[in-house]
């Protein structure tokens, strides 16, 4: 498979890019923020996403979806990133779908069609502290009645307070098990916090939450592989979104360099800025290629995917971070103003960088996977 978009993918991009840019440009985020919206995204927009068939892109056809791959999902995510569009797409349509499709069974049958039809929003309740450490899950699931009892705390749960279902990772006797915990489960509370990028993420408390045995996603104790699938998909998706964020910031900045005059010249004429912009361009191109490679390997079910996913999250993290920092700096004073969009890119990048493992976490993973 060549490492560029084929004709079908290019067509998808040609329809998604203008759609997102028209329906949910950065002003859409501003509107949600300024109205102190309590949901974190627009339901109307999600309905439009559904009309385009986007929520079920990765859902297998047998469950009412389009059966597409990570490469295609990445196209949508890049546009979401470029426009800073608040949306449950990443967690619901990428992360949750990857886990449910891998697990199959009752929960897949129940939730995948609901995701495809745009009815269900899913939250991923994995992390438990300020940093992403999925190998240190302390939430417990103990057998009770004909099901399980869940106890623990989860943090940084995007859409946790509005999700119809949360995928909760918990420790069971023999390993990790994933549970589908419905919104109205007793003992489940989600306390939403406004983040720097004005999205909402919850602190979730599981206080003796009782679920039936069939709430298990996949098999008891065998959630490790499913969790891995969820993480790989979400990390790759976040990397794709970061490429969009970085690209959006870079495009804004390059445009500004061609418009702003100082010392009687366009600032884009100064070699000091040209070289930094050109360096940034190189980093962004490499990041994009890396994310595409991770998507391709995931779609092929290749063994090399795991390494490339971490490489992609780390590389996209570095490149997008450079893009937003240079973006604000090269805008000068105006880059510091709330009125100007460039700062919003910096904020979104920060949130995505932290999501599902930051640059350092993934660099460390790369070292481990290479035996050091």
């Amino acid at each position, binding site marked *: 498979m060549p490492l560029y978009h084929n004709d079908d993918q290019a067509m998808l991009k040609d329809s998604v890019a203008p759609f997102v840019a028209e329906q949910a440009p950065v002003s859409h985020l501003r509107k949600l923020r300024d109205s102190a919206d309590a949901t974190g995204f627009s339901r109307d927009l999600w309905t439009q996403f559904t009309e385009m068939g986007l929520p079920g892109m990765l859902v297998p056809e047998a469950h009412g979806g389009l059966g597409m791959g990570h490469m295609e999902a990445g196209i949508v995510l890049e546009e979401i990133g470029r426009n800073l569009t608040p949306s449950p797409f990443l967690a619901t349509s990428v992360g949750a779908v990857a886990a449910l499709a891998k697990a199959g069974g009752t929960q897949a049958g129940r939730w995948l069609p609901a995701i495809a039809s745009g009815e269900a929003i899913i939250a991923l309740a994995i992390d438990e502290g300020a940093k992403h450490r999925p190998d240190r899950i302390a939430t417990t699931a103990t057998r009770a009645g004909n099901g399980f009892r869940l106890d623990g705390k989860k943090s940084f749960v995007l859409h946790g307070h509005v999700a119809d279902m949360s995928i909760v990772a918990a420790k069971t006797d023999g390993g990790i098990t994933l549970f589908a915990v419905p919104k109205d489960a007793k003992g489940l509370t989600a306390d939403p916090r406004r983040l720097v990028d004005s999205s909402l993420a919850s602190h979730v408390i599981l206080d003796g939450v009782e679920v039936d045995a069939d709430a298990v996603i996949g098999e008891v104790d065998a959630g490790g592989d499913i969790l891995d699938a969820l993480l790989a998909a979400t990390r790759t998706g976040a990397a794709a979104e970061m490429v969009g964020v970085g690209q959006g910031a870079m495009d804004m900045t390059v445009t500004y360099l*061609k418009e702003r005059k100082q010392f009687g010249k366009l600032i884009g*004429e100064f*070699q000091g800025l040209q*070289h930094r*912009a050109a*360096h940034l361009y190189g980093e962004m191109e490499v990041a994009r290629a890396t994310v595409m490679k991770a998507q391709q390997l995931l779609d092929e079910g290749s063994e090399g995917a795991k390494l490339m996913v971490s*490489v992609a999250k780390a590389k996209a993290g570095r490149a997008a971070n450079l893009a937003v920092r240079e973006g604000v700096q090269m805008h000068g004073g105006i880059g510091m103003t709330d009125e100007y969009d460039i700062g919003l890119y910096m904020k979104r990048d920060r949130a995505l960088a932290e999501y599902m493992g930051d640059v350092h976490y993934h660099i460390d993973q790369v070292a481990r996977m*290479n035996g*050091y």
Partner: protein
Amino acid sequence: MSDLDAFRAEVRGWLEANCPAEMREPIREEGDVCWGGRNWVFKNDAQKRWLEACAAKGYTVPDWPKAYGGAGLTPEQTKVFKQEMKRIHARSPLDSFGIWMLGPALLQFGTEEQKVQYLNPIARGEIRWCQGYSEPGSGSDLVSLQTFGEDKGDHWVVNGSKIWTSYADQADWIFCLVRTDKANKYQGITFMLFDMASPGVTTKPILLISGNSPFCETFFDDVEVPKTQYIGEINRGWDVAKYLLGHEREMISGGGAGGDMVSIGGAFAKAFGKNAAGELDDPILRAEMAAFDVDVFAYRAMGERFMDMWKTGRAHPASSNMMKYVGTELNKRRHELVMSGGGSEALEWDSEETKGGARARGWLRTKANSIEGGTSEVMLNVIAKRILDLPGA
């Protein structure tokens, strides 16, 4: 089985039958790289057999047309061929400026006669070429070059000097930029080809910081060049030169400018030892090496994408500048880490155990990566202007 799968099977079988075991070993020293040419002394019989087998099949230049010594492979087949070569760690049968640079320029600008005349010997490794671009006063600002060819009717008489001419002392022929119109900066340069054995050509090796002297000063003293030996149009050599530079950059970046693409930390873990947690026993160096590994694996993905796009005409024409810039900076970083990882051993300059100070010499050699074929700063200028379309000069 798809056509491509069938082709893969065919290549695999052919390599199995034709690639000698000695040619599946990593390159260890200069003599392991086969440059060919009139004066080439094969290092061993395997090197000779490998070149002959590939040349007969068109595999020294797999994507060139068959009429010019290639195998006429499509971009997809070429990719498969390279993958199969890589799979068995096969050495390149022949490396040369003729393949990397002159060949593509001839394919683009040469007459039918020139293609037949020059490309076949390049493909068979019979003529070794060198590149006469830079002059003492003209490096980054190449177009300011002064070497002059005076029009004498059926030939030019060339006078001047070139510098940094890699392997000039071992080359058979030179492709050379010569000013033929002093009044016109850009449209006054002709792209000439001539035999280094022509009367009036002399070379003088230059010693480098690595202790090697792979390149030379080259002097032209009333050298006669027949009027048939130029490419493109007279006075329009700059077009050819620029096109060729694109390929030089493609070669420098595609040909592993990021360096050997395996994990660097993995290689050093053995030498350093690991701590109780199984980690390389120097946390700061471990972190730097891991960050470097991320960049290398990422660059490898970029290399694949770049090649896929370049070969199918999708890449921005100036994107080879970006590849060259990123790849060469990466390779320099690799060798800094190699030196750190090697510690005092890597400092040894001539001991047998260190293969004559191979690490130190290699480290010093890589500093040229971001100079040769156009400096990093010049690459950034080109990206800024041609890709980002930034204003000014």
